[in-house]
């Protein structure tokens, strides 16, 4: 089994092609159902970051950076942080920080219930996922200034 490009062997590449989309879907499911079942923004964000890291480990750096470049990761992370801050500051309408400004809270166990909690989960998952992918890309692609060995 020769690998004709960078990355790992053929078996790993085939399995990665089949499962990486499912891992991303599972992470989005855990984020969106954060107010009904266990999980939430932090765990879902880390799972989304892990799917991109899986892509980078199996196929090499070029393929993964084409899907999500380092500039795009920085922009997404700042977007997530700004969205969270905006939801917090909108509470000044009611006089408190983090005021739940939806008038009726919906039925329990629905997907669109519980006020601002799903929006906060989405913002946090964007921030955590993009930030951890940026950390990983910087650490693995570190080449140094060539003074090693």
């Amino acid at each position: 089994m020769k690998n004709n490009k960078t990355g790992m062997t053929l078996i790993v590449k085939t399995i990665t092609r089949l499962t990486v989309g499912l891992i991303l879907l599972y992470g989005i499911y855990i984020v969106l159902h954060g107010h009904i079942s266990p999980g939430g923004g932090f765990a879902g964000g880390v799972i989304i970051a892990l799917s991109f890291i899986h892509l980078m480990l199996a196929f090499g750096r070029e393929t993964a950076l084409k899907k999500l470049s380092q500039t795009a990761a920085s922009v997404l992370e700042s977007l997530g942080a700004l969205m969270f801050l905006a939801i917090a500051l909108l509470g000044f309408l009611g006089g408190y920080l983090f005021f739940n400004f939806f008038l009726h809270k919906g039925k329990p166990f629905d997907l669109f219930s519980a006020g601002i909690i799903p929006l906060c989960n989405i913002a946090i998952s964007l921030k955590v996922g993009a930030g951890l992918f940026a950390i990983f890309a910087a650490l693995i692609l570190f080449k140094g200034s060539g003074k090693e060995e």
Partner: protein
Amino acid sequence: MELQLLLLFMIFAAVVAVEVEDLLSSVIAVGAVGLGLSLVFLILKAPDLAITQLVVEILCLIILIRATIKKDLPLLRDGRWLFNTTSTLVFIALFLIFAYFALKELPGFGQPIMRVAKEYINNGLEKTGATNIVASIILDFRGYDTLGEATILFTAVMGVLAVIRSVGRIKDEK
């Protein structure tokens, strides 16, 4: 009963991680401690924490293995090894003795004083509409702490990108 067995397994894996000389083996042993901790969270009825600890442990292992790719020379023992080790062990034994007296003041294992949590459990569903009480605590009742935590993550990402950035590119062309 299962709780004590899992804690003993974690202690054994931690001793292996501390004493083994090969760096890759000790990183794998730390991974075993983290997975055992995830199982303990499940026994203590905390499913949110079990999911988060499992995925965070996997990411931490990947980052640590990246750091151990470098080879290093084996370290020799320096002088005064006996004195240093015995003084550390004496200090740790003193710490454990005083901690035992402090732990007697806590309420017994299994009977928590839930003065604040009673309000959150009783009024949680009607005030926020979420059925996951831990999510409603971290995002609605105590949202300010989550804002601080998002700031810490942002600062850590900026710190890593600033440390790793290659400096002095102009000097290399000489």
